[in-house]
């Protein structure tokens, strides 16, 4: 449970950041809703990247210790 939780925050964090940045961008440039769409997608991809990296580190790269 804790492990899944840990990884899902990576994904959620990416999407949240994309949404926030997209919303701000749209407000400045008046480009609604394209900034939001593009940046949420980018944030999602970044989140997936983070999930993969974190999962890799947690399972192999990290030192011994509780997991």
């Amino acid at each position, binding site marked *: 449970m804790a492990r899944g939780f840990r990884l899902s925050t990576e994904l959620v964090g990416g999407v949240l950041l994309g949404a926030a940045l997209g919303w701000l961008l749209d407000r400045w440039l008046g480009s609604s809703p394209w900034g939001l769409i593009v940046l949420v997608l980018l944030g999602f991809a970044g989140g997936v990247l983070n999930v993969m990296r974190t999962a890799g580190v947690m399972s192999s790269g990290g030192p011994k210790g*509780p997991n």
Partner: protein
Amino acid sequence: MGDPIHQFEIKKFFTLGHLGPYEIAFTNSALFMLIAFAIVALLMLVPTRQRALVPGRLQSIAELSYEFIASTIRSSAGNEGMRFFPLVFSLFMFILVVNLLGLLPYAFTVTSHIIVTVALALLVFFTVVIYGFYKHGLRFLRLFVPSGIPIYILPLVTAIEVMSFLSRPISHSVRLFANMLAGHITLKVFAGFVTMLGGAGILGWFGAVLPLGLTVALTALELLVAVLQAYVFAILTCIYLNDALHPGH
């Protein structure tokens, strides 16, 4: 027993003053931070005072925590990572003690407030960014440009890398915050069942056994989560610091 949210309430003990429009008060949160500081200080300073060659029990704990964090840093950020040893050590010990303190009955969990975890995550984030630019100058930006990527998808990959980098403080802080918050709410709810059923007569007594057992199991789990989350926060800090030290991958 009541509201499982009640335990996260900040209680103001007295007001110290105002910083612009903001009121600065001494609260239960500050109290538990102070207690955590005192515990870490006592653990690290008192048993090591004699510098015994053969350590006593408390001195071994101080030495073990030292060596545990040192090995964590070395294995994930290399020997150069040791310049951030005090930072990672302080983060780990602070979060660990604060998490564990929060498990005590009637105690307040400092890390169940997002502002605290965000502040700590941003501290790490800006340490990485500032040290990265200070050490490598603009070459630090190579972190976002992986090598061996065809030029036509490079902008996309770079954008994704930037998002990945920027979203780190969010996941870094939300993870710790959400774990502590969710764990404590669950614990409180189950403990609430126990008292509720226990108050409902003989039948309730039998009914209360199951939630009681669950509460005990959950407490053990929360103990594990408290330690684990401190460890995860520390090791992710090391991994992020590793980017500042070696941006080239």
